[in-house]
């Protein structure tokens, strides 16, 4: 099978630090690929390079077999890649709807939309409300609430819902449950299963091994800025995975 | 409300010249039982605030306006409005452009004031005038009209071709070391003088826009020990300025009479409110010249001047 998203030899330096050190990456259609690694291993930098948030110093990225050059997150989004960044990327003072549609607003039909470029607030609100409740992630009382008035968990929910609603090819989640409670994390895992069942592949970065082993089809182990190995969670234990990512054990060969 | 209302609009209310003018107007208004409103721009050159002031005067039903225009032509439209509303408008200190835009003008001739000190400087130097090294300390880079008139008047009096008389800085006479700006205060005067001295330490004639600038220039000269061999001339005739002439800080200054302008103005408004009489200009001039006199203790022949003592009697501020 052809990978849907793949990268070769990615390099990214920050001053003295090499965040990506000739890193390779593959994501196959329909799978949940987990990316695990120590703090500072370069996981976030990797997905930023894939989603256009960071332009790598070197290396190549292919989407569905075609070479792509993303210069901004907008480029990647237009190509169908949706990302929930570790920092969430929401405008706190704006409403949930505004945030969900940021950069891809719907305009009114007819003259008002075409000539005066008026937004269709109603349509966007309905869509947002539907997505949020479809996903059953939470009950939002007021879709026009400013994001800053939401609790951390609700905010994360909105970010994930946004990605799930618009991601047509790939959805990337960078530690979506770090700040979440037990119940709220579970809802996000449910959502991941949901999205996978719609056939959309997901990249999931997480430090939570039980969650990773529960939902991942394959696990990309990241260490010191590069891919150490890719393992199948059915063949390895969590202990193995942790041993690989912390350097306690060397993988036998480049697996899977 | 039967009281006659008059307005006084000055360029600023921070320059003692205008403070004095206001005092003169206030005193006269009290004497004649006139209600006086005073207004001022924020800086010299701020004509928008003056426009607002005229509008306020119209709104409060004034009979007359005394104005020292910050921008002689920009104010004309508003002045027209006021006159259409039946208000007597008198320009003080600075004639409008055109001069008949106001009903009357009680002013110093700023060009003439500059000319006087220019002539005095040339005559005092005698033959040395041919080799003079002249520093010109002006008001600001925006070249407000008063500054230009005095500067060009001085140069004319000194016998230098001024080129375009509507702006300074386009002259090519080698005796001019340079023009710099002072904002009309001591600090600016000192810095501008230092800058020009660094260009040519042998400067021996200094024109200054007003007396505070002259005082600043003097400090700069004192700092390099040249305060006694450089001639400073200035304009205004405020009391500190005249005293500085007496103390030898300034060689000569051209004195104006803001108190007089203001009290004459108030009188004219009172007259106009009473019977509609318009004030008449000085014979042979387009405006009523409140006069300008050279103040110096080193008079030269052919140029009328008064002594410092006399100047102190007439001084303001």
């Amino acid at each position, binding site marked *: 099978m052809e990978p849907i998203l793949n990268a070769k030899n990615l390099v990214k330096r920050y001053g003295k630090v090499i965040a990506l050190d000739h890193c390779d990456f593959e994501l196959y259609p329909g799978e949940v690929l987990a990316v695990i690694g120590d703090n500072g291993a370069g996981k976030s930098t990797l997905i930023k390079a894939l989603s256009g948030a960071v332009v790598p110093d070197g290396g190549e990225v292919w989407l569905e077999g075609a070479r792509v050059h993303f210069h901004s*997150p907008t480029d990647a989004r237009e190509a169908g890649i949706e990302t929930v960044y570790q920092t969430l990327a*929401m405008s*706190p003072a*704006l409403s949930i709807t505004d945030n969900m549609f940021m950069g891809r*607003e719907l305009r009114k039909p007819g003259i008002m939309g075409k000539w005066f*470029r008026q937004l269709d607030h109603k349509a966007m609100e309905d869509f947002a409300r539907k997505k949020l409740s479809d996903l059953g992630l939470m009950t939002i009382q007021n879709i026009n609430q400013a994001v800053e008035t939401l609790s951390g968990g609700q905010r994360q929910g909105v970010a994930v819902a946004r990605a799930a609603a618009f991601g047509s090819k790939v959805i990337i989640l960078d530690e979506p449950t770090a700040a979440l409670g037990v119940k709220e994390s579970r809802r996000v895992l449910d959502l991941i299963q949901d999205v996978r069942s719609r056939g959309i592949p997901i990249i999931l970065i997480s430090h939570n091994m039980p969650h990773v082993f529960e939902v991942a089809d394959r696990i990309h182990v990241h260490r010191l800025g590069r891919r150490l190995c890719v393992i199948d969670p059915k063949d390895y234990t969590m202990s193995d995975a942790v041993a690989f990512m912390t350097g306690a054990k060397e993988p036998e060969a480049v697996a899977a | 409300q039967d009281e006659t209302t008059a307005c006084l609009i000055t360029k600023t209310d921070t320059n003692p010249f205008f403070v004095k003018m206001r005092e003169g107007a206030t005193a006269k208004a009290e004497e004649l039982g006139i209600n006086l409103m005073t207004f001022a721009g924020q800086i010299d050159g701020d004509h928008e605030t003056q426009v607002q002031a005229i509008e306020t005067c119209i*709104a409060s039903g004034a009979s007359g306006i005394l104005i020292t225009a910050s921008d002689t032509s920009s104010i004309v439209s508003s002045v027209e409005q006021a006159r259409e509303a039946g208000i007597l408008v008198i320009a003080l200190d600075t004639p409008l452009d055109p001069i008949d835009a106001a009903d009357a003008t009680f002013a110093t001739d700023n060009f003439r004031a500059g000319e006087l000190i220019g002539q005095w400087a040339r005559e005092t130097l005698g033959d040395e005038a041919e080799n003079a090294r002249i520093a010109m300390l002006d008001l600001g880079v925006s070249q407000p009209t008063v500054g230009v008139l005095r500067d060009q008047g001085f140069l004319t009096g000194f016998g230098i071709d001024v080129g375009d008389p509507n702006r300074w800085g386009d002259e090519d006479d080698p005796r001019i070391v340079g023009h710099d700006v002072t904002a009309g205060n001591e600090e600016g005067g000192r810095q501008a003088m230092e800058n020009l001295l660094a260009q040519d330490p042998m400067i021996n004639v200094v024109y200054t826009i007003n007396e505070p600038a002259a005082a600043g220039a003097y400090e700069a000269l004192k700092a390099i020990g040249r305060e006694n061999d450089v001639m400073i001339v200035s304009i205004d005739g405020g009391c500190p300025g005249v005293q500085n002439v007496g103390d030898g800080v300034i060689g000569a200054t051209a004195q104006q009479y803001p108190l007089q302008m203001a009290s004459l103005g108030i009188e004219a408004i009172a007259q106009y409110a009473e019977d509609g009489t318009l004030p008449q200009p000085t014979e042979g001039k387009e405006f009523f010249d409140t006069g300008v006199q050279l103040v110096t203790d080193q008079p030269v022949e052919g140029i009328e001047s008064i002594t410092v003592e006399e100047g102190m009697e007439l001084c303001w501020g």
Partner: protein
Amino acid sequence: MSQSDSYEDIVKARREEKFAEFEDERKGLLHKFHHALHVTPALVPLIVLVASIVIFGVLLGSRFFSPFALTLILQQVQIVGIVAAAQSLVILTAGIDLSVGAITVLSSVVMGQFAFRYGIPVPVAVACGLACGALCGALNGFLVSRMKLPPFIVTLGTWQIILATNYLYSANETIRAQEIEESAPLLHLMGAKFQIGGAVFTVGVVFMIVLMLVLSWVLRYTAWGRHVYAVGDDPEAAQLSGVNVKGTLLSVYMLSGLICAFAGWALIGRIGSVSPTSAYEANIESITAVVIGGISLFGGRGSILGSLFGALIVGVFTLGLRLLGADAQWTYFFIGVLIIAAVAVDQWIRKVSA
């Protein structure tokens, strides 16, 4: 400490949950008022504005509280109001534009000099002036968005550059009102007056009001408007969530420059002549209007209508104090107090209604 592996099963089944609901202790009118304050940021300055009109109306009677005097305020604030619209846009993106005054006067000088010095047809000269404003704005926008220099410093620099250019280019020449009236009356368009009862309006005043309404509509109902807020709120987040941050910034500064050029045109209408020394205080006055209007200097919060009210508040105070006979320095003193008081009241209302 057993069964640890399956503790998440508890939360796998979804339960109907009642959300934490807290009784709201504040009821009725007052509560509605608080809520309105909270969702309509321009309401606070509007209240201050109305209050100050009422106070001066009581103090001064019909001298102040007449159609003539009230519309006079509109005329007096029109330039600051238009410039404040430009300033608001920039401040909403968490920037600041110190060059607004310089752009305003340079644009007016370009309109005048192009028409008179070169004899270009007046409509073309006006267009050139507008283009000049947009160009100056584009320079700011380029330096801010591409070179990533701080807006305060960029516009501090361009302020001086543009102002010096203005003096150099105009050769300190004023074009007199009489000449303009004769040969280029279009330059006076914004100053054209019409009367409704005792109220006197000018085209410039109408322009200011329409501009504010249009901008406030655009900011609310178009994607570009939402992006302006998003960029001011958190540029990095905006970038990551798909906003073209550079493009938005560039367009905001350009638009700001263009609006300033319109202010320059209105300036000719207001003072009659074209003078290179005009609009000197427009920077500080426009910023004052914006902050009194409740727009946060940190960007992303506030309504542009607030700036209009802010400008009007200053106008009301200035005219009111003048009519009361306060002299100029006392007026400045009270405006200073007003600035602090307005913001303190704003903070306080927001806190109480939070």
